[in-house]
């Protein structure tokens, strides 16, 4: 029998202090609550900073950058600049908190613990789970370091862990965005990548029901990084050697694969503090004792209760301030969006695929009367953009030709992967089709060097004036727009395209 029956008090049904801190941290990580309602991500300057826990920065609620995503992208950009910033931030977080982040602050850790609450037979730790716990170091080496570096050498930004594994990205990012009706058109992007990641996410969630913190223990590369600092971390569970009798109760009570308190697997949850019969274990921040166990604190109960009440009051005040800061409407929120230049089309349904787009092209003869806008059937907003290599691209000059506009960026993996298709389209149709690839205005210092590596003949422009916004885009790349000979939008989609899709869009328009 694994359980001991004990008399329960009302306190046993209340969430523990650690659980409250976890909930508090999860809310702080995702304080942009209005993002969930609007189906958009936060794009403010708080995202200069990396949050400590695993929390996808494409989540509508996220107010900071995910350290793991930032690290992969920094490694993927090693060709242009060394990843000092992210490594420095990870070092600061690791030295200060170590894996206390996993135990107290990580929103994904909280989710795993809540799933583990579902009653089921639980897999106990063993030699096998201990061996499996080293898998996360392999994932760190392969998916977080090797894959981004390998692709960086080929000038393709590739965050391997985000793309192939990260369940936080699938759950918080993809599902978080897709759950909002405002993003209904984004479903058309989903294919094998989403299916694979969804299955991985479901398996991880299912695994967490049976195995305590299955992802954290076996797969999480962020936990692997923080684990390296556990020995030095300022905050964490510490053992007073003079009091320790080496009874082994602490390591035995721990659900993680620890071999001793505070080793690289320890998440400093402080669960062992109350187990220790000699009160040798305490939660500390440097020399200050944060928690010394129920027995040790019993005489000072009243004094500590007062201090904790003040701490919680301060924490709640901070949370209220943060929530107000991120959720109160701002001037830019109330201003009309740049892209809303005309009334929407009669149908709310966006064009979901290439065939549908070509099946119902806008009436060319109606072009002079059609309103300007980014929706299919509207007249594409005019623009002029400076070209790399000199000159400028004016949309007005392409009137009478089928025009393909592609918004891209060197730091966007699917964007650089699909550029050859636009080049192939140019090679096939020549001057009959006007093509322009417009680079995002964010981080443009490596565009010249990137273009010098390839023999692309299509014109490349720079989005200096927010052209992407006039075409309904904002934070998602790539985006492709096809205009007919009269400049009317017949296709406007975020997401990757293939040559076949481009060809099926363009060829019927040329026959008109």
């Amino acid at each position, binding site marked *: 029998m694994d359980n001991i029956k004990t008399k329960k008090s009302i306190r046993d049904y209340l969430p523990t202090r650690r659980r409250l801190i976890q909930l508090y941290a999860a809310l702080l990580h995702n304080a942009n609550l209005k993002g969930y309602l609007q189906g958009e991500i936060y794009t403010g300057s708080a995202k200069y900073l990396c949050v400590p826990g695993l929390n996808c*920065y494409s989540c509508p609620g996220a107010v900071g950058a995910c350290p793991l995503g930032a690290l992969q992208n*920094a490694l993927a950009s090693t060709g242009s600049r060394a990843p000092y910033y992210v490594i420095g931030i990870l070092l600061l977080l690791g030295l200060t908190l170590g894996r206390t982040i996993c135990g107290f602050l990580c929103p994904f850790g909280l989710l795993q613990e809540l799933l583990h609450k579902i009653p089921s*037979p639980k897999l106990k730790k063993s030699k096998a789970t201990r061996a499996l716990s080293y898998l996360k170091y392999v994932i760190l080496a392969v998916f977080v370091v090797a894959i981004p570096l390998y692709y960086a050498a080929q000038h393709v930004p590739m965050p391997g862990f985000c793309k192939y594994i990260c369940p936080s990205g699938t759950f918080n990012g993809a599902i978080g965005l897709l759950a909002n009706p405002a993003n209904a058109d984004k479903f058309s992007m989903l294919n094998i990548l*989403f299916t694979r990641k969804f299955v991985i996410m479901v398996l991880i969630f*299912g695994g967490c029901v049976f195995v305590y913190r299955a992802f954290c223990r076996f797969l999480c590369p962020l936990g692997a990084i923080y684990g390296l600092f556990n020995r030095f971390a300022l905050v964490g569970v510490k053992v007073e050697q003079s009091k320790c009798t080496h009874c082994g109760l602490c390591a035995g009570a721990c659900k993680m694969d620890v071999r001793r308190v505070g080793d690289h697997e320890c998440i400093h949850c402080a669960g062992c503090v109350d187990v220790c019969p000699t009160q040798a274990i305490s939660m500390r921040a440097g020399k200050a004792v944060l928690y010394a166990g129920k027995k040790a604190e019993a005489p000072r109960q009243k004094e500590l209760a007062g201090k904790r009440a003040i701490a919680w009051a301060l924490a709640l005040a901070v949370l209220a301030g943060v929530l107000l800061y991120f959720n109160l409407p701002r001037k830019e929120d109330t201003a009309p969006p740049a892209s809303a230049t005309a009334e929407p089309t009669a149908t709310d349904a966006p064009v979901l695929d290439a065939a549908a787009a070509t099946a119902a092209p806008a009436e060319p003869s109606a072009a002079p009367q059609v309103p300007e806008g980014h929706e299919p059937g509207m007249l594409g907003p005019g623009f002029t953009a400076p070209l790399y290599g000199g000159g400028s691209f004016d949309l007005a000059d392409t009137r009478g030709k089928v025009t393909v506009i592609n918004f891209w960026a060197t730091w966007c993996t699917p964007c650089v992967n699909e550029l050859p298709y636009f080049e192939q389209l140019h090679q096939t149709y020549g001057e009959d089709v006007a093509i322009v690839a417009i680079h995002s205005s964010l981080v443009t210092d490596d565009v010249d060097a990137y273009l010098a590596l390839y023999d692309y003949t299509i014109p490349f422009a720079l989005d200096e004036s927010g052209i992407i916004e006039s075409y309904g885009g904002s934070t998602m790349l790539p985006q492709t727009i096809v205009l007919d000979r009269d400049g009317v939008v017949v296709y406007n989609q975020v997401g990757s395209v293939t040559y076949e899709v481009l060809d099926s869009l363009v060829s019927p328009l040329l026959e008109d």
Partner: protein
Amino acid sequence: MEKTRRLIRWCMAVLTVAVCLLLCWQAIDIYRVGNSPANFSAPGVRIAPVYSRQIVAERLRAIAPALVVYAAAAVLALIWQAVHGGKERPRVQKPVPQPKRAPGWLLPALYIAAAALVALGVANGGARDVLVKAVNICTECIGLG
């Protein structure tokens, strides 16, 4: 009591596995149907997208009873466990001796190195790179495609 506890745990285990398989099957089946030859008008050109809000809603409606049953069962099992469950008996694990303490100068030295790296990163534009990636949705990174 122990018999009931065990029964509830195994029932929930079976239900958990079944729900996970059901969700995975739905996703795989949507992918299979969307990529079947019948959904292509020409090589590489689909008649209808693989996923759409309508398709997902239909699939979710189909499995909604199973999900509701699972959620209800989980809540009831949690309540039963909270009322009748005991605390886990602590086990004893052969301890491994604590390592030697790190030298006192190491932590301050590492902090200085970390601060220097952050400063260098801000200077070389690394901080802006982080912002750019965080405020733009990398569709591929979150599994959208």
